[in-house]
């Protein structure tokens, strides 16, 4: 075999390996079934400025929605942060709505195969790096989970878990 032929064979082999790696079948457990959004609101009957200057006022419709429920009724609501993360077929995932702070974390995992109507999740709410709540919940379209959480600066945090608006389960 000539030297040129050896180089051709070597080049083809080195070129084939990366292609082989790139085209390897993906882990089916990582296929994305949808997206989950976790949002943290600050609700207070006091001065909403306590949430900080960057906290934004929520929309009127949401304010009305929250105020309709007696347990969630406050004078003011402010958005503190949110995070949208993919829902994997087999793996758990975490949402960190107040990042870089890990004061509020939500771990979620598909409990069953989502349908267009509903997504059944296993959820864990972690506060201050401690698991505070473990639950399963059925999220339906515009039917979120609202958790009235810990006190903070004279008000309380409301943690909302919902399906991402533009990412329906598939």
């Amino acid at each position, binding site marked *: 075999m000539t030297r040129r032929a050896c180089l051709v064979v070597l080049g083809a082999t080195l070129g084939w390996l990366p292609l082989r790696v790139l085209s390897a079948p993906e882990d089916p457990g990582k296929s994305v079934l949808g997206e989950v959004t976790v949002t943290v609101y600050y609700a207070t009957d006091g001065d909403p400025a306590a949430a900080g200057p960057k906290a934004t006022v929520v929309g009127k*419709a949401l304010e009305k929605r929250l105020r309709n429920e007696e347990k969630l009724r406050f004078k003011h609501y402010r958005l503190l942060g949110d995070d949208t993360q993919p829902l994997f077929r087999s793996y758990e995932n975490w949402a960190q709505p107040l990042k870089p*702070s890990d004061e509020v974390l939500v771990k979620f995992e598909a409990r069953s195969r989502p349908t267009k109507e509903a997504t059944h999740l296993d959820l864990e709410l972690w506060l201050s790096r401690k698991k505070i*709540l473990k*639950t399963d919940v059925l999220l339906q379209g515009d039917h979120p989970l609202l958790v009235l959480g810990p006190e903070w600066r004279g008000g309380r945090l409301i943690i909302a878990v919902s399906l991402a608006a533009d990412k329906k389960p598939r």
Partner: protein
Amino acid sequence: MNTKPAETTLARWLDDDLEGTELAAFEASHAADATLLARREESRAWRASVAAAIPAAIEPAYPEFFNHRIAKSIRERMPKAQPRRRAAAAWRAWWMPASAAAGMVLAFWLGTKTGGTPQMMTLANPDAAQVAAQGPTVYTPEHGVDAEWFASPDAAATVIVLEGVDAIPDTLDFSDSVGLLSTANSTAALEPSDDAEVPE
């Protein structure tokens, strides 16, 4: 006349095994035979020399050991006794499967007679209404923390109220939350769409 002695009688005479009338009759016939007398003397001398060389009885070393080995070898060569099959096994071989099958048929028949068609719900295909009606399972591993859940038609949501949770220190500031800064439309997740109705 045949004067040759029978072989067995001769052998016994040589061994001094003949007695009484047999000995008298034999010696009367062959007492003059010098050849026979010489053979008898030779036989006697040989027996005497053997008796002098070998003790009368020699016990083998470790006789119990040898006896045990011999008995074991005999046992191994003998055909093993087959365990007797109990008489009940014969009818069991036929009746147990038959009775099991009959039981299954009976159970199936009873199942068809009790109630209507059951509602099947699998994990892969959950009945959303049924799951929603059951409500979430709520668990609070932290000591002193309680959680109460309810379906809120007013908020169109499932609500969980946590009590007993440690307050987040006021010194913590979430103003630099990345989610808050990067998501301009961050309230979209809970904002009802235009055609959705929020209960009054």
